[in-house]
């Protein structure tokens, strides 16, 4: 396999780390450790390292929880991708995963809804959501996107690629 094309694409897009495959909790942990070590070596403030790490964790756990919720955790639909790239003086953290086609619109709307909210509005939304009862079998508290938005320095972007009647591929990028 000639990886030069992939290598070139990574180099030109400022890619620092990329993982493609099914996310297990231990993989999320391992990549997280590698990411922190990598960023620590770049001599940036501890707070910035933690922001990138936090966004990475929320994105990765969101993907994992979504796939479990929709029972997409097996075989080819389970493979997801997470990337950390340079973005100007900061970083872009992205996740990509299969979603059910009908979830594309509500998910995109949830992302766009957060655009334009001030830090104070995001904080009060976060607190409201923290106070909301979580359904018995929920895997997350519905706080992940708000947490990401609060740590971001630019609005999140998302794209949906329709694959067939059943599945779409959803990409989400946060900028720190």
């Amino acid at each position, binding site marked *: 396999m000639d990886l030069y094309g992939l290598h070139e694409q990574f180099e030109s897009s400022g890619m620092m780390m990329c993982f493609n495959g099914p996310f297990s909790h231990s993989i999320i942990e391992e990549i997280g450790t590698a990411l922190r070590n990598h960023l620590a070596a770049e001599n940036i403030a501890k707070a910035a390292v933690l922001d990138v790490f936090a966004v990475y964790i929320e994105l990765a*756990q969101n993907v994992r929880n979504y796939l479990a919720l929709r029972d997409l955790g097996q075989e080819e639909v389970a493979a997801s991708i997470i990337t950390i790239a340079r973005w100007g003086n900061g970083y872009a953290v992205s996740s990509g995963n299969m979603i059910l086609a009908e979830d594309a619109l509500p998910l995109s709307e949830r992302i766009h809804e957060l655009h334009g909210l001030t830090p104070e509005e995001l904080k009060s939304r976060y607190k409201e959501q923290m106070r909301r009862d979580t359904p018995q079998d929920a*895997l997350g*508290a519905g706080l992940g996107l708000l947490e990401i938005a609060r740590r971001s320095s630019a609005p999140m972007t998302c794209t949906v690629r329709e694959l067939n009647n059943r599945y779409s591929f959803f990409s989400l990028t946060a900028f720190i």
Partner: protein
Amino acid sequence: MDHPAIPQTPSTPLVSFDADQKTLRIVGESFPENSFSFYAPVIAWMKDYLQQHDALLLDLSITYMNSSSTKCMLDLMDLMEEAFGKGVKSAIIWRYDQENPRSCELAEEFSEEVTFPFQIMAFN
């Protein structure tokens, strides 16, 4: 009910209880695979403990917490707030690394949610 004694892992904090000091310590990082199932026994223990005792100090030293862990932490603080209303001496000490202002900001947000003593302390 047995006191909590959970060892630390890379993604879950140490949880331990000192009965003499009436202190529950949570130390480390918190981004469990499932925060709700991780914290459920701690929440159940605290509920039980607060019904039978007159004081509890929650001593926290958490460098990073994911969003679902913040929800569980709020559940613990709510139990302490309720007990405080019934005369239990509830208190929190939140320790954070001076180089980690995010942890301090998070502590300040939590402290807005309770009326009992909540001390935020930086360490080097």
